[in-house]
C-alpha cells in the first residue's frame, strides 16, 4: 500500500499549481478553472484520509465540495458573462473600477 504522504504531497502540488494559476493568469474564466484545480487537490487529501481511517465520511465531504464547485462555477460564469457584456473583456487587469 502506498503511504498516505505521497497522496498528500500530490494534493499539495495540485493546490499550489492552482494558486500559481490564479496569480499569473489574467483571463477570468481560467482563474475560475484554477480554483477548481485547488478544490480537486483538497478532494484528493479527503479521499486519501478516508482510505487511511477506513471510513466513508471523507467521500461525503468530497461530494459536498463538488456541489459547492458546481454552484461556484454557475455563479462565477454568470458573472463573467455579465462582465463581458458590460466591459467587452474578461481580462481581470482591465476591470479596476473599485481600485483607486
Amino acid at each position, binding site marked *: 500500500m502506498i503511504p498516505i504522504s*505521497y497522496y498528500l504531497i500530490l494534493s499539495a502540488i495540485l493546490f499550489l499549481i492552482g494558486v500559481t494559476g490564479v496569480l*499569473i493568469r489574467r*483571463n477570468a474564466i481560467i482563474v475560475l*478553472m484554477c480554483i477548481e484545480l485547488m478544490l480537486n487537490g483538497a*478532494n484528493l487529501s479527503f*479521499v486519501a484520509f478516508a482510505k487511511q481511517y477506513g471510513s466513508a465520511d471523507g*467521500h461525503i465531504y468530497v461530494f459536498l465540495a463538488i456541489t459547492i464547485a458546481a*454552484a461556484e*462555477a454557475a455563479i462565477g460564469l454568470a458573472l463573467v458573462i455579465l462582465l463581458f457584456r458590460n466591459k467587452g473583456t474578461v*481580462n481581470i487587469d482591465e476591470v479596476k473600477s473599485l481600485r483607486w
Partner: protein
Amino acid sequence: MELYFFLFFATVATVSGVSMIIQRNPVYCVLLLIMVMISLAGLFLMLNAQFVAIIQIVVYAGAIMVLFLFVIMLLNLSREEWGTFRIQRPVAVILSAALLVPLVTMFFSKSTKDATTTINENTLGLGEVEQIGALLFTKYLLPVELAAVLLLIAIVGAVVLTRHGTIITED
C-alpha cells in the same frame, strides 16, 4: 504495481496542471483540466472511492467543465495577452514553490506520522454506493439538504444575473 499506477496518474495530473496554467488558448486549458480530473478519478479508484471516481468523471469532467467550455465558446475569446505587471509572474511562481516547503515538512513531521500510522486495514465495503447512501441520508442529512438549497440559490442567481434588461426597476 500499485506504485507504478500512482506514479503514472500523479505524473499525468501534474504535467497537465502545469501545462494548463501556461497554455494560452482557453479551450486547451479546459481540455487539460479534464485530463487532471480523469487522472484524479484513477487515483480515487486506487483509494477505494469508486463512487467518488464516477462522480468526478460524470459531474466534474462531464458537466462542470463542459459549462466552462460552453462559456468560452460563447464569448469567442481570443488568445490571452499576458498581464501588465511583468514582475507578478516570477514572484507568484517563487512564492508558490516556497509554500510547498512548509506543506511537505508538515506531512513528514512527527505529529502527522502519529496521526497517519493508525491504519485501518478494514476497507471492506469502503466507498460503495450503499455505504455512502446510508451516510448521506442519516448522519449527513442536514448538510445534504443545505447543499440542495445552495444549488437552488446558484441556479436562481445565475438566471437572474444573466437575464437581459434591468433587474431592479422591473415590477
